Every structure is written in C-alpha cells, then in structure tokens.
C-alpha cells in the first residue's frame, strides 16, 4: 500500500512540474500554424510598422476589409496538422468547445483570471471578443500590442493572419485583430523561455490550465483512482487470484518490475521502483489518452515542454543518486592516460546532458509524428475532395483514408507502449549506471 501511495505522489509531482510549462516553445511551428487564413499581398509598408513599436493603423485598415464574413479559404494540410498538435486554451470535442480557465500575467496589468468562454469561442477556436487586451486566436491566447486598445470586454470584427518578414529575413505569420475598422497587431503566444528558443519575448505569461494540462490532470486522476482501487483490492483479496482491474494492472506492473527494474538496478531496485512505475504509467496513460479519437486529440506527450519536464526529473533523480564511482567515471575515467582525459572529460560531461535531451526528443518526436501522420491521412479526404468541390474524390479518399488511419492507429497503439517502455528502460539503465558499485 505504501508503495502505491508513493507512486501516486510521484504522479502529482510529475504533474506539478509540467503544469507551468505546458506551452510548447519551439519557434519552428509558428510560421505554419496560422497560414490557412487569408493571405494578402499588401504593400511593403507594413514591414516598417512591424519593426517599430508604433502600429500604423491607417496602413492596415484594408486588412480588415472583409474580416467580418467567413471567407473562402484553401485547405492547407500542414497548417491543419500543426493546429491539431499544438496546445490550446479551449477543449474541443467534435463541434463543442469547452472553455478552460485562463490564468494570465503581464507586468502592466497584473494577473487576469477568467474562463476562456469570455472570448466567445466560435469557429476553429477563434474568439469574437477581446478582454483586457487578450484575444483568442485559433484556440491560443494572444495579447494586443497597442496599449490604446480598450481594456474591457469588446466585440472584435475578426482576426486576420498575414505573413511578415522578421529582422533576420525569416517569414513569420502575424495575427492582426480587427476592431472598429482598424487593425491591431498581436504578440506571439506566450513562452516562458526568455526568447531562448526563438519564440521571442512576450509581455505576458500564460499559466493557464490549457488543453494539455487539463488532459494531464484527467489522466493523473484516472491513474490515481485506478491504483487506489487496485491497492484496496489487494488487501481485500489477500491470497486470492487477481480479479477485474487488478488482472489488467498486475502483468504490466510486474513486467516493469521484472524486466526493467531488477535487471538494470541490481539489488537497489526496490528504492527506484515507484519512480519507474510512475514514469511508465504516466507516459503510457498520456500516450493512450492522446489516441482516443474525437476527444480533443490532446497531444500531451507530443509537447516538448512536457517531455522536457519528464526528462528533467530523470536527470535530477539520476544525478542526485549518482555515487562516487559514477562521478569518477565522468571527470577522471580510471585507467585512461592523462593526456586523453582532456578529450574524454568534456565528452563525458556533454554526454551527461545529451542523455535527458534524447529522452525528451525521442518521446516528443515519436508521438508528434504519429499524430501528424493520422491528421495528414484524414486530410487526404479534403485534398482529393478539393475542399468540397469534388464529392466523388472525397468519397473515394474517405474509404482509403479510413483504412490508412486505422492501420496507423494500430501502429500508434504499439508505439504508445513501446515509447513508454523505452523511456522507462533508459531511465533505469541511466540509474543503474549511476548507482553501480565498483567491482574491478
């Protein structure tokens, strides 16, 4: 029972660490994320405006010429895929959008806490209201740069996306909010990395319970309930054969214990078993939760911040438990000639950081790739259907794409287990290497 409680405590610890960071911050997805919307060929005047802090409203007036109506737009599979794998401030299940709490902080305005239903969530997670200079753009909260924009809740005419060129010559999509016939520039979505990953520094920070955080909480509660239930069953049915949920959990639990913890950790396996079990079941739960179709398609383990937090926990646990033998092998490998140590030591130190880095990237890339492939297969229907013009093409592609998607889904089911297992087994092997006693 104590072990089970430890596992639950580990879940909540993992949960808390990932909570504040669930907004992914790789800049590369930014340029594609919003391309599906109107592309304008506007005069070069706006580039200057983008660089200056001052926004020239008059030059952007024509941006909003047709922002009110829903314009015909060409289907862009890449943009759709990026939209579906990224985090959001609304939880969409089929046609229904469930609002989530927004917890936003900016230096000038302080904390703003409200439900995202205040934005009036409409089609595609676009809000038609602005509140305290925040707007909802495709499910993501953004802030209007101009301090002259009204602070109270106001109706906006729409959000227009336009490609702009940044100072270093890269193309980037900027969202403009149309209000009273004028265009107001918005900032990037919030990142808490101080511009390290190229997303830029924003004037606000988003600590919201986003789609990913909500899914994580749901999975943690579900797993917590499962483990408490199974633990009670073990007390009740002491000495009897497992039944019900017990017989589902037990083989997986024993597999991790016998195939991962015992071979890699030697006689210290009991100390690290709760950590390994928590890691495995948390990752497996999130992987499988993301596989459920129509349930918001939450891509939690396909988020760099989440996998990064998990890898960071592994890094800390491994290095805190590292013994003298482990550190000696990093800083002064025994039995190696002194001049060679000049090369060996830096390589070993880099290796120290590469290990959690690959843990983070492996889980992220595998899960994201799976989600993207499924979305692209579903996009085939729209590509062959030419956005609704070619019904025959759409029907034909629908049959093919259903089969391909079902095939991919079953592969992804396998990948969900394998990646959770790989993360756990690698953590165990790093822990094993760090706690190994000297025997030569």
């Amino acid at each position: 029972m104590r072990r089970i409680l430890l596992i639950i405590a580990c879940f909540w610890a993992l949960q808390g660490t990932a909570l504040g960071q669930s907004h992914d911050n790789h800049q590369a997805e930014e340029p594609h994320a919003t391309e599906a919307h109107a592309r304008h060929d506007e005069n070069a005047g706006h580039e200057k405006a983008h660089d200056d802090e001052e926004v020239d409203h008059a030059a952007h007036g024509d941006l909003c010429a047709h922002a009110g109506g829903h314009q015909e737009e060409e289907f862009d599979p890449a943009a759709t895929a990026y939209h579906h794998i990224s985090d959001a401030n609304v939880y969409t299940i089929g046609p229904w959008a469930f609002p989530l709490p927004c917890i936003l902080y900016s230096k000038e305005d302080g904390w703003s806490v409200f439900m995202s239903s205040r934005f009036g969530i409409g089609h595609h997670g676009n809000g038609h209201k602005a509140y305290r200079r925040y707007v909802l753009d495709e499910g993501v909260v953004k802030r209007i740069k101009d301090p002259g924009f009204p602070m109270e809740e106001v109706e906006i005419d729409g959000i227009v996306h336009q490609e702009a060129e940044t100072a270093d010559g890269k193309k980037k999509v900027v969202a403009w909010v149309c209000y009273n016939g004028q265009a107001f520039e918005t900032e990037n979505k919030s990142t808490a990395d101080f511009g390290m990953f190229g997303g830029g520094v924003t004037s606000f920070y988003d600590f919201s319970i986003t789609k990913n955080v909500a899914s994580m909480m749901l999975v943690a509660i579900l797993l917590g309930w499962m483990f408490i239930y199974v633990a009670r069953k073990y007390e009740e049915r002491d000495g009897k054969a497992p039944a019900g949920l017990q017989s589902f959990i037990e083989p997986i639990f024993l597999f991790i214990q016998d195939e991962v913890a015992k071979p890699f950790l030697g006689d210290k396996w009991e100390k690290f078993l709760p950590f390994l079990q928590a890691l495995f079941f948390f990752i497996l739960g999130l992987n499988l939760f993301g596989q459920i179709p129509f349930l918001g398609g939450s891509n939690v383990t396909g988020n760099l911040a989440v996998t990064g937090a998990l890898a960071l926990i592994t890094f800390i646990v491994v290095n805190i438990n590292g013994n003298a033998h482990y550190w000696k092998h990093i800083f002064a490998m025994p039995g190696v000639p002194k001049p060679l140590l000049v090369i060996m030591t830096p390589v070993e130190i880099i290796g120290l950081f590469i290990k959690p880095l690959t843990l983070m990237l492996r889980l992220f890339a595998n899960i994201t790739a799976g989600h993207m492939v499924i979305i692209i297969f579903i996009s085939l229907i729209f590509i062959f259907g030419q956005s609704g013009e070619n019904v025959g093409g759409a029907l034909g592609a629908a049959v093919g794409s259903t089969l391909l998607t079902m095939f991919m889904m079953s592969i992804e089911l396998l990948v969900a287990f394998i990646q959770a297992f790989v993360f756990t087994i690698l953590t165990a092997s790093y822990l094993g290497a760090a706690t190994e006693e000297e025997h030569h």
Partner: protein
Amino acid sequence: MGGSIAAIGMSLAVIGAGIGIGNIGAKAMEAIARQPEAVGDIRANMILMAALVEGAALIAIILSYLTA
C-alpha cells in the same frame, strides 16, 4: 512547400538510423532463432539499442528542423 538543404539533412539522418535499426533487428532475429529461450532478454536489449540509435537520428532531425 519548398525543398531545402535541411530536408536533405533530415533524410540523411533517417537513412543512417534506418540502417542501424535494420541491423539491430536482423541480428536480434538471428539471435532469437539461435536461442529461442533467450527471447525476453534479446527483445529488451533490441529495443534499448534501437532507442539509442534513434536518439542520434532524432537530434540530427531536430537540429535540421530548427535551422531550416
């Protein structure tokens, strides 16, 4: 949609990882055929080795993605 040198970098990384993981899989199959009773140990080690090879390829892919 435009091709770039980064795309070539990504594909080279994938070719390398593909050869590596292919070799691991082939040798693991051989080993299992030779010693079917050791299938559990071989499978676990095969997955571990494949994950390590994959890690190097993933770093290359992410780096080329970021510099694209």
